[in-house]
């Protein structure tokens, strides 16, 4: 990991307006990403972890401008993506790619694998058709697919192989920055291990920068170099992997670590019920710190004001009044 900032996200907000059925009135606002600032450094694997509805996927998609922002900035090598016109944005897609969760719905069932992987080469008019096919075959080999299957359709492949197709498609334009959105969540555990290894091999070979979004703490803990924890649209803690694993301070991060299943029956422990309650709806999140109704450490202030993300130790940020010792 270098100190070069590849992506800078500044106070990014993405709100969805929810309409009730049968009317045109906007009835409520879902603040999926609500004021997120972060840097992605060149060559790092930034793990983004959180439970459903925390906004982690929306964050990834808004950074790639697959969603329009509500407010804020996303700078890629210093340029604001949201100031680019469609031609400039099309150029940018060569640099930024995405790998999706569901290897079934993210591949067009009516297209052959060679078309799916080579589509971006067609769109950007890269090479002759013969060169494109050669490139597709190389990509298939690189992700562990036999190139002789290039004329097959997605349904003729297993889940793990389909995920390899999705990865090959993301690699076609030789990007720098790849957002992996729950890229291994739908896979069986033995296949998941293969794909994690593949993603690491590719990163080492091509010096990619990954933003690796997942709900599974163990997966993020293994693959990431830095970890960001989200809860209901906001960052609650961010630190290097070693720091976050050994010295996490935010009560929600603690809850995630405590809730993660043990790795041996010998380690079964009491006290998982320390953190009660459900994840609240992001449409109407609790006042103040969104985690306060579930937090055993909450004080009065927590229900009134949202704590800022503050540096606890160098490079380690947390948003918690109690941790920041600012509870008066």
């Amino acid at each position, binding site marked *: 990991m270098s100190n070069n900032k590849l992506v800078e996200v500044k106070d990014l907000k993405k709100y969805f307006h929810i309409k009730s059925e049968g009317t045109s009135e906007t009835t409520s606002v879902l603040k999926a990403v609500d004021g997120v600032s972060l840097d992605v450094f060149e060559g790092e694997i930034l793990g983004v972890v959180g439970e459903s509805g925390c906004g982690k996927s929306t964050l990834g998609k808004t950074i790639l401008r697959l969603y329009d922002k509500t407010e804020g900035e996303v700078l890629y090598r210093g340029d604001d993506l949201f100031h680019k016109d469609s031609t400039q944005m099309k150029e940018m897609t060569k640099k930024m790619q995405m790998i999706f969760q569901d290897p079934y719905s993210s591949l067009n069932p009516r297209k052959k694998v060679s078309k799916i992987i080579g589509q971006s080469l067609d769109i950007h008019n890269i090479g002759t058709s013969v060169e494109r096919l050669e490139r597709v075959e190389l990509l298939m080999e690189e992700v562990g697919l036999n190139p002789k299957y290039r004329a097959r359709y997605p349904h003729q492949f*297993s889940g793990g192989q389909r995920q390899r197709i999705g990865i090959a498609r993301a690699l076609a334009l030789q990007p720098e920055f790849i957002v992996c959105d729950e890229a291994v969540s739908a896979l069986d555990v033995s296949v998941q291990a293969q794909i994690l*290894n593949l993603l690491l091999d590719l990163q080492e070979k091509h010096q990619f920068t990954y933003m690796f979004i997942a709900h599974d703490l163990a997966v993020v803990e293994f693959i990431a170099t830095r970890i960001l924890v989200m809860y209901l649209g906001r960052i609650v803690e961010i630190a290097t992997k070693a720091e976050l694993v050994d010295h996490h301070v935010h009560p929600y991060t603690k809850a995630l670590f405590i809730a993660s299943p*043990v790795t041996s029956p010998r380690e079964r422990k009491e006290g998982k019920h320390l953190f009660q309650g459900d994840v609240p709806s992001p449409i109407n999140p609790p006042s103040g710190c969104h985690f306060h109704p579930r937090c055993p450490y909450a004080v009065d202030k927590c229900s009134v004001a949202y704590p800022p993300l503050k540096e606890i130790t160098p490079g380690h940020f947390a948003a918690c009044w109690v941790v920041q010792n600012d509870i008066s």
Partner: protein
Amino acid sequence: MEIKDKDVLLSMENLNFSFTTQRGVVKAVRELSLYIKKGETLTLVGESGCGKSVTAHAINQLNPMPPGKVESGKIFFNGVDLLTLKKSEIEALRGTQISMIFQEPMTALNPVFTVGSQIADVFMTHQNMGKKEAMEKALELFRLVKIPAPERRIHAYPHQLSGGMRQRAMIAMALASPEPGLMIADEPTTALDVTIQAQILDLLQDLKQHVDMSILLITHDMGVVAEMADRVVVMYAGRKVEEADAISIFHNPYHPYTLGLLNSLPSNPKYKGAKRLEAIQGTVPDLLGIKEGCPFANRCEYQSDECAVSFPQEKVIDETHSVWCHNYDKVNRERSM
């Protein structure tokens, strides 16, 4: 393995279950034997398509038949062979001694009735209770499974509850029987967030202290196995490949597939600071037209010639631990090096 009959609630003997499809006959479960003792939690673990759900659904006969078919085998529950019972007798058992919770409680609950009335239904159908008494019983169960504000939630429709609460309601329904015997839990926490999963697993453990029941837990997640299991049956491509107490499965596995599953977990402590995982190569075989021999052979680093020819006989490690592998001693030697 010797089984003392009086402790055993359920025993399955040499079950063969197949599905007829347009492409041919799929042998989903082959020669499967297992037993569940009173009060214990047995987990069936394996990846998609290994036959774990089909095995469990064979017990309460929820597999669609046809296309499903029991080719052979026996399933004894409290001494009675379930496969010889009439449909009505099985239905009576389902509401009284064999209950079930599913992965997705939203699809398992009826969306047009309140959760309370659905639980009350169980009491009214199987215990001839009146509506009022049944609702009171349902409320009692809501308290037992720790649903917050139970008096209010009992009148809620499934969509008004969160995923975690819906699963609690399902568990309450499973407990709505006069003599809870066996609870079959099919991936009960797979659809839940991790903090909610911890709460539900905690609840199940807690209930076992208060209610006399056995749990057959089906999961793909070795983490859930580590949290819950007394004993474990590992399945691969329709076959039982290893069976042992939970500690032995995690600390003394003999089957290359069990070892591979444990090595596939990024949370395995051996990977602290590691750069890559020791992944099992290849993919699960197509069960259609699967050959004799060990189904794991083509992915196995320990495979020898005999693996392609015959499925191994049971190798007994100790009284609670058995493995079905031709080269189990080789696995053990290398693992302990």
